């Protein structure tokens, strides 16, 4: 769909982004030492750090991706919310205190605290960079998606805008400004999503979203010709002749007989009424011929009860295919294990003063993130029935829902979504720059640097990562945001979690075991992803059936593999503190 640019939206957007960068410059005066640049002096208040956790974690995938998935597929999008939040339990009860006690600047510091091994630093720095880059791609793609309707600029311009802004934020003050950007963004995101949810409940549910019913039930065809021109129902696409927005209530429950709208509803009542209603969703069928690629969007009236149970997106849950069920189980395992393995989340534990503050900030983070994920259900379902959805873009569901209320709310929500991307990308660039400057250059290559040089090296690495992120964001523009984030969680959980958990709970863990687990976990999950049916279809454009692995999400195999490799290699190498010559024969 073509989206109209609003001057009000431009002004609000510019104010948000300008405010965030201004705050960053102001805070930049405080961050001159390495301790300030990488860990904000370890003086961030636990409450601020807790909300900053939410700012770091609630990325484009959480806000744009989950809302869009619920709006397009119903309940299954909420399963992502459940899995993303569950991962914080691992962070709080298993990881928070030890990581604070062991590390200084980066994740590699913690894993290497006992061994002082260049091999560990090298393996963990590479895994940090791989996970950060895989997590960066969807954020940049999401930024580009937002800019198209908001500013009327091309996708690449959005990517470049985020890249430049983030590089400025990170280079000006490192972890100090990144923390405050996350705090502001996390607070605004939860607050304005609560306002949006309140408006959804106040509006209630309306048949056909106030438009003539017959129009909503007509199919529409979008054609992309080989030369790139786009047709809608056979005519060239323009603002006057475009795809109609989709997604409405078809019928309301009997108790609303004779009415077209429920009026305001309470939170649980909204869900119960939706379950007893019918919803006009749509099916999308693609075919390719000599004229181009055609996608036919056909209205499809479905029971609300069917949309509010599992199986809309994860089809295997209803068809019963074992491989599909294993795929789902694997994803939910990766979401559970992945959170506590994400480098940009782990380094936030170094910004508070002690273990108690780390614990308290995690609880605040869980409260803010949990509240947000409850709101995603209302935002997604509100978008599904708002009559405002663009059937070509899942990522735009939340901003378009806001536009169905008012242009100003659309502008605010879009600006917050953009700062969401800014915040998450800042955290990722910080984690990546630490891995390059502190782990690779200083510890692996042995380059001795003064405090000032360490900061300069980190800033140079941040600029480099910003450029890489921009290039990848433009290159991967047609990829699904949630799909890419799933990759990052799987790689993080497979490469990092086994080493971290075993280091904390198994005294027999050796440096060889850690290096092997990180390397094998990272390569195995990466290899599995590249050989999966999803990648065959969505990346290479090949047949799914040609894939050589049985299901697409690797976690179910590669996370246990990481543990097994660590145990096997540790047992086969000298125990910590034992000289090789004194080792008992097995």
């Amino acid at each position, binding site marked *: 769909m073509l989206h109209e640019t609003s001057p009000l939206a431009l002004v609000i957007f510019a104010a948000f982004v300008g405010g965030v960068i201004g705050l960053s410059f102001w805070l930049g005066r405080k961050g001159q030492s390495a301790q300030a640049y990488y860990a904000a002096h370890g003086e961030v208040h636990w409450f601020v750090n807790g909300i900053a956790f939410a700012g770091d974690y609630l990325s484009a995938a959480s806000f744009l991706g989950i809302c869009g998935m619920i709006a397009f597929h119903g*309940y299954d999008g*909420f*399963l992502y*919310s*459940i899995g993303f*939040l*569950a991962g*914080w*339990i*691992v962070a*709080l*009860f*298993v990881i928070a*205190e030890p990581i604070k006690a062991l590390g200084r600047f980066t994740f590699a510091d913690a894993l290497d605290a006992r061994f002082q091994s260049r091999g560990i630093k090298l393996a963990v720095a590479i895994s940090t960079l791989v996970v950060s880059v895989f997590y960066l791609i969807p954020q940049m793609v999401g930024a580009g998606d937002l800019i198209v309707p908001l500013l009327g600029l091309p996708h690449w311009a959005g990517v470049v805008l985020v890249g430049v802004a983030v590089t400025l934020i990170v280079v000006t003050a490192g972890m100090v400004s990144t923390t405050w950007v996350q705090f502001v963004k996390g607070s605004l995101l939860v607050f304005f999503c609560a306002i949006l949810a309140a408006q959804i409940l106040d509006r209630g549910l309306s048949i056909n979203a106030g438009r003539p019913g017959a129009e909503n039930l007509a199919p529409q065809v979008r054609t992309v010709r080989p030369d790139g021109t786009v047709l809608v129902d056979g005519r060239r696409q323009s603002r006057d002749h475009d795809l109609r927005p989709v997604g409405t209530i078809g019928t309301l429950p009997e108790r609303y007989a004779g009415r077209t709208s429920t009026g305001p509803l309470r939170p*649980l*009542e909204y*869900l*119960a009424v939706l*379950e007893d209603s019918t919803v006009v969703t749509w099916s999308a069928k693609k075919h390719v011929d000599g004229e181009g690629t055609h996608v036919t969007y056909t209205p499809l009236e479905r029971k609300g*009860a069917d949309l*509010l*149970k*599992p*199986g809309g997106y994860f089809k295997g*849950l*209803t068809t019963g295919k074992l491989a599909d*069920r294993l795929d*789902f*189980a694997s994803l*939910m395992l990766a979401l*559970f294990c992945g959170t506590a393995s994400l480098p940009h989340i782990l380094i936030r534990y170094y910004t508070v003063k002690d273990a*108690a503050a780390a*614990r*308290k900030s*995690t*609880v605040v983070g*869980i*409260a803010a993130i*949990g509240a947000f*994920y*409850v709101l995603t*259900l209302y935002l997604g379902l509100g978008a599904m029935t708002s009559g405002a959805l663009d059937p070509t873009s899942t990522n735009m569901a939340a901003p378009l829902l806001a536009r169905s209320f008012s242009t100003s709310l659309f502008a605010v929500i879009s600006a917050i979504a953009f700062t969401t991307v800014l915040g998450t990308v800042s955290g990722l660039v910080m984690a990546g720059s630490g891995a390059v400057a502190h782990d690779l250059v200083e510890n692996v290559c042995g380059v001795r640097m003064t405090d000032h040089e360490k900061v300069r090296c980190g800033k140079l690495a941040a600029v480099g990562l910003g450029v890489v992120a921009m290039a990848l964001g433009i290159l991967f523009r047609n990829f699904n945001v949630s799909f890419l984030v799933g990759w990052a969680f799987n790689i993080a959980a497979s490469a990092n979690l086994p080493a971290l958990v075993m280091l904390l709970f198994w005294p027999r863990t050796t440096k060889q075991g850690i290096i092997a687990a990180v390397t094998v976990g990272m390569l195995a999950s990466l290899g599995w992803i590249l050989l999966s049916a999803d990648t065959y279809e969505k990346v290479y454009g090949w047949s799914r059936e040609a894939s050589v692995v049985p299901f697409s999400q690797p976690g179910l195999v590669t996370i246990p593999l990481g543990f097994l490799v660590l145990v096997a290699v540790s047992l086969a190498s000298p125990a910590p503190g034992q000289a090789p010559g004194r080792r008992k024969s097995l």
Partner: protein
Amino acid sequence: MTPSTDSQGRRLGLALFWVYVALYGGFIALVLVRPDLLSLRPFGGVNLAIACGMGLIAAAFGLALLSLVLRGRGS
């Protein structure tokens, strides 16, 4: 906080972790094995799928808060 209360706190944290693993694992098992049960509406309003999802989010916060309170008393 002394080493012994620190160690007790760790044990408490791990116990709460396993409680949540049981809840989360039970829910995932239900989705995998008997997804039809999640359509039931035993409480009349929302179905089990939504009740369980909201419940898991609330349980995460509840356990986190509980650990904070119990460890606060122990220190």
